[in-house]
């Protein structure tokens, strides 16, 4: 999977890494059990601080998307975290819908867009 880090973007780099890995898992670019680069390898490859990668991986681990092991390194979790729609997800989604409404999008347009993204991810 390709990671694209944009240093001009307001989103912090650790969040960009986290988001893209989540999207990669969702659209099947990263399969369960697939090895990810170690913190050192990724920071070296991207030319960023090890702490940044560490922060992204810690977040992904906490959310259950990846698992780390001293011997085998970092890998995508065998089972993606389930447990239904969380409050955090709901509030995030609500915020996005509100922003879309304020941008002038109709309900149908929002639904179409969601459908489009959902299809792409699958």
């Amino acid at each position, binding site marked *: *999977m390709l990671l694209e880090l944009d240093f001009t973007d307001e989103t912090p780099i650790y969040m960009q890494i986290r988001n893209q890995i989540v999207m990669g898992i969702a659209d099947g670019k990263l399969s369960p059990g697939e090895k990810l680069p170690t913190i050192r390898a990724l920071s070296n490859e991207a030319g960023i601080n090890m702490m940044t990668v560490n922060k992204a991986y810690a977040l992904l681990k906490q959310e259950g998307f990846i698992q780390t092991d001293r011997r085998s390194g970092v890998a995508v979790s065998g089972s993606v975290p389930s447990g239904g729609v969380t409050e955090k997800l709901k509030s995030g989604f609500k915020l996005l819908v509100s922003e879309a409404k304020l941008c002038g999008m109709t309900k149908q347009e929002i639904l179409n867009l969601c459908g489009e993204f959902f299809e792409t991810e699958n």
Partner: protein
Amino acid sequence: MTAFQTNLIISVFFFPVLPILYFILRNESKPKKNIILGVTIPYEARQTEEVLLICKNFRKHLGITALILAVIFPAAFFIKYISVILTFYMLWLEAAIIAPYVSFTLYHRKLKRLKTEKNWEGSSAGKIVLDTKVSAITQKQYSFWLFLPPVIISLIPVFHAAFFESESLYFIAFVVNALLTVLFFVLYKTVFRLKSEVIDGDTAVTAALARIRSRNMGKSFLLISYFTGAYNICFWLFIESVTGILLSSAAYTVVVLFAAIGAEFAARSAQEKLTQNSGTGFFTDEDRYWINGMFYCNPSDRHAFVKDRVGINMSMNLAKVSGKIVMGISVLCILLLPVAGVFLITEEFTPVNLVVTDSFIEASHTSPEYRISLAEIESAKLIYSLPKSQRVYGTGMDTLLKGKFRADGYGECEFCLNPQVSPFIVITAEGKTYILGGANSEDTANAYKMLG
């Protein structure tokens, strides 16, 4: 050393710079890793008429530049004075380094303008793109033990000079060569810390490119490390022979160039084949971080070294302080070459001078060289021909011998004379031998008379 010998030796070392740069830069007009003339071009645009025309004109311009420089080169053989010959070569070398890159920059900019006009910028422009699969692969590396023999070999002259020679003038040269063998090991390790060259989403190609690069660069660093170890031994063994040192230096230069350029061209050819169809649809575009396609400057990148986009080996990140310092020193060295010429001309055309006062005799050239107290002089004699001598360090020109020399029958001596103006005064004082001369025969004879 005569003017002809100087010309011959310098030609061997300097002239190859031109064909090497010519072929390296000419090769840049072929697409490699979707880059042409230092500009990232999408697959669809590579064979367009405009791109092909710019590449063709670049090759023509570069060819004419190289031809002019090659035609100028033999002019040095018609120059009589060594300092002028050396100045000529330094200016030529500067032109041979700069002019081909000027051609490259001109056509790089043309291609970049075309890219902007045609809107060929990749969607990832300005972003750092990396492939997680490739980053997770651990590249196979040579063992540290493979690099140890050249380090040990190169340390032999260092230890010999340090423990068995009371005064070794070449100790620093031995140490530098030994340090170089270690440096090549460090550079070898650096190769594996370089960023992968992601062209598009094809992981297999990215992984293959990383393998090719590390294998070829690694091989060349290992070979060069061994060559440097062997060179240090040759330098040590031939220390008494100028011809031996020159020949081993020439051989070392040739093999190092062959190893470095051979590895680079092998990698380029493999890259060319592998990336023939790369860059369709999504492709990476880091052009904005490359000044004139040659100098890498990315403040967001912590890498101090990156793989060269144009040329061979590695470039430094100019956004880092270390990169700025190294680049500054390199540019300064190139620009200061003609200044060295001015110094040499002053050396050759300033006459030597011999002055005797009531208390001392002084030999001067551009500045006072030797001042010997008359009271300390043990013996002085006049000779009409110079003994066969070999320079240890100092200046050796047709009209000037200055510095430390080994002279037959006298051992190590201090020289300050014009070999074309005899006689010469041989003075021994405080255990040292000096062979001095004046601006003309009368001056030397008068000085000798005053010594009494």
